[in-house]
């Protein structure tokens, strides 16, 4: 990626990495659409031999030789038995039955996690700079599990099985399904046992936002990653005949439009189809569109496809207006014709002009790449939100990372829009999604794993979470683009990742496999269900033990208070107290940490003890937190933050309270 290394201050991490760093021994397994091995992001210059413990392989196939792998790309395999059994045998004229990436997504995600440094990276001139993965020294193994027809759980589980057996230290999965119990979810089951074997599993939170409770991959042993913007933008201006100039975004790079105005028409008035306003394929009337700027509404078909539809109908350019579902979120696309995507508000302003002026005109001016955009990050509207529908007592997502307009390596098979009609070939592409934020965290997890090879997956996750930030440098809280207001922990989890701080967290919340089994006992899973998730046959939930989800040593807090019956609307004086127990492990120098709590007015928070002294590294100290609150109307939520600090380190946990 370009820019995200600067945005995340990765240049400051070098000095913090211990001499004993074993980052080049860490292999990031990426389960995705495969790999384009010819990309310079897999250049292995400067790499030593592949670790002797590595058991992976580079699978030979028609369009993929074992020579495609090297000391950087150490494994490439594909898993298609489930896909082919569920659909049809793969049509090799349409997709490669090999690890080769026909789509681009897998090349993008794996290079984001651990791609080598590539100077002169750009997409059609946009986002130019030196591209690199989050961990340039980690190695990459790709496991192709996603095909034209989707990603099937039998293939995903087989790939996870192989990746862990091969020796991957981090697994990155930028894919997911709906909400389902952990014992039915193959990714949750595979991740449980991967984590039990010391492998960090980082997954995308999903693109179901901004609606609440839209998360994927929410098992507590998974690191669930939401998406935010970076300080880079690609402005493109809609210049209207009435003199108004409205800012949208675009990655169009062809011949620019004239600054003289063009006739301007609403797609809904240039069609005989009821959904013509969406610029669906074959719906625009060429005699009405030819030579004009066309305003299309966002929705249903791909944004970039609308551009092809306008172009094919003879349109000169396109203004793409967000609907209420997208609000003000601007996602840049490498449109095939001069185009700009504008937010709903500006879209309404443009439509107002378009519908009131008898002879509306417009043109589009492309602004190129701008950096230093503030505020940033802001939460992407599409990023899936909590609370967790499965376990409201675990706060999800865990963390936010860059996932909007991310440049990374691309396949040579399709153009940057991914449309069959797009004949352009680019080495890099700019795309958005929690798919893009997930590998940022996977790569950073590899960085931490290399720096501290004895840290458990949960310690690494804790370090990333407790050092993340939830406010801008001026103290204002991170914004949510969906609302324009401050984001909550249900949007950002612990906050936005801060790699230099994660390398020196001071304290971590560690969790063992047995702790996770106690968690499953607390969920009242049956023995068969726990055995299926954990693979452990001798597991038992003790009848005499009271298991509680709140005892899981999680780096964040989520308290789901039950509303007293009859309290809806008016509230009730009945106070409920919920206790959480946590244990902190010192991973830094000896020190004394003091706690501070920012609690919402609805909740009283008491921490005991208020001070924890650590005499040595590895020492563990426990504390309890009591959350007391009177009943609130059902659906209420409130938030806070609990921070342990020795004056140098800040070990922060978000607090989320709901009343159901």
């Amino acid at each position, binding site marked *: 990626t370009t820019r995200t290394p600067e945005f995340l201050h990765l240049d400051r991490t070098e000095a913090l990495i211990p001499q004993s760093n074993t980052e080049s021994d860490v292999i990031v397994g990426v389960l995705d659409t495969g790999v384009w091995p010819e990309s310079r992001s897999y250049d292995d210059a400067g790499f030593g031999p592949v670790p002797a413990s590595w058991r992976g392989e580079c699978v030979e196939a028609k369009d993929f030789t074992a020579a495609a792998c090297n000391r950087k790309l150490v494994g490439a395999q594909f898993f298609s038995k*489930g896909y082919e059994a569920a659909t049809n045998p793969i049509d090799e004229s349409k997709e490669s039955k090999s690890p080769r990436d026909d789509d681009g997504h897998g090349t993008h995600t794996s290079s984001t996690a651990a791609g080598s440094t590539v100077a002169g990276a750009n997409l059609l001139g946009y986002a130019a700079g030196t591209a690199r993965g989050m961990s340039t020294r980690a190695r990459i193994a790709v496991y192709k599990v996603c095909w034209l027809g989707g990603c099937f759980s039998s293939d995903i589980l087989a790939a996870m099985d192989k990746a*862990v057996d091969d020796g991957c230290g981090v697994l990155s999965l930028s894919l997911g*399904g709906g909400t389902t119990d952990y014992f039915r979810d193959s990714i949750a089951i595979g991740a449980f046992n991967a984590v039990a074997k010391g492998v960090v599993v980082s997954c995308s939170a999903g693109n179901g936002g901004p609606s609440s409770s839209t998360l994927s991959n929410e098992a507590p042993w998974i690191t669930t990653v939401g998406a935010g913007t970076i300080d880079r933008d690609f402005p493109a201006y809609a210049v209207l005949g009435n003199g108004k100039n409205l800012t949208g975004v675009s990655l169009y790079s062809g011949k620019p439009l004239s600054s003289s105005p063009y006739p301007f028409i609403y797609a809904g008035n240039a069609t005989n189809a009821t959904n013509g306003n969406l610029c669906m394929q074959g719906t625009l009337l060429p005699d009405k569109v030819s030579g004009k700027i066309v305003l299309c509404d966002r929705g249903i078909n791909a944004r970039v496809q609308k551009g092809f539809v306008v172009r094919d109908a003879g349109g000169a350019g396109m203004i793409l207006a967000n609907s209420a579902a997208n609000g003000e979120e601007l996602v840049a696309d490498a449109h095939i014709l001069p185009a700009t995507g504008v937010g709903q508000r500006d879209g309404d302003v443009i439509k107002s002009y378009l519908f009131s002026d008898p002879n509306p005109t417009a043109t589009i001016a492309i602004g190129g790449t701008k950096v230093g955009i503030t505020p940033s990050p802001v939460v992407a509207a599409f990023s899936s939100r909590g609370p967790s529908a499965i376990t409201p007592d675990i706060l999800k997502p865990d963390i936010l990372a860059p996932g909007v307009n991310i440049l990374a390596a691309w396949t040579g098979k399709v153009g940057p829009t991914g449309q069959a009609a797009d004949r352009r070939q680019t080495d890099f592409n700019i795309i958005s999604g929690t798919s893009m934020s997930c590998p940022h965290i996977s790569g950073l997890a590899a960085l931490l794993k290399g720096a501290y090879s004895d840290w458990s997956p949960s310690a690494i996750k804790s370090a990333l979470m407790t050092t993340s930030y939830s406010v801008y440098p001026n103290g204002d809280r991170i914004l949510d683009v969906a609302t324009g207001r401050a984001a909550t922990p249900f949007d950002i989890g612990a906050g936005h990742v801060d790699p230099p701080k994660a390398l020196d967290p001071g304290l971590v919340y560690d969790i063992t496999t047995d702790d996770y089994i106690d968690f499953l006992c607390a969920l009242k899973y049956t023995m068969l269900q726990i055995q299926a998730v954990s693979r452990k046959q001798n597991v038992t939930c003790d009848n005499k033990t009271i298991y509680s989800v709140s005892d899981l040593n999680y780096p964040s807090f989520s308290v789901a208070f039950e509303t007293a019956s009859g309290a809806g609307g008016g509230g009730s004086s009945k106070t409920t107290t919920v206790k959480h127990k946590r244990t902190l492990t010192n991973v830094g120098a000896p020190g004394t940490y003091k706690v501070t709590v920012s609690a919402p007015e609805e909740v009283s928070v008491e921490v005991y003890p208020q001070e924890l002294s650590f005499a040595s590294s590895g020492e563990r100290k426990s504390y309890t937190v009591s959350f007391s609150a009177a009943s609130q109307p059902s659906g209420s939520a409130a938030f806070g933050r609990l921070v342990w600090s020795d004056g140098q380190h800040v070990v922060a946990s978000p607090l989320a309270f709901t009343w159901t």
Partner: protein
Amino acid sequence: SLAELRKKTYIVHMAKAQMPAAFAEHSRWYDASLRSVSDTAEVLYTYDTVAHGFCARLTPAEARALEDLPGVLAVHPEVRYELH
């Protein structure tokens, strides 16, 4: 009904430690378990590192029959996931 005849992929989670002594390898035991409910089904994958078990194409009736066999922890229909 047609739905009852239609085969789907199921992921079968097994209690590996409960393998009868008559079997030398888990894959043989999995195969025998599958064979006891279906003459035609074949194992697509065997899982051993992050899960214990296998997956196969089964009718719903065969899947239900498999659930009742000793050593079978769970039988889950395959789920399609999507890129994010």
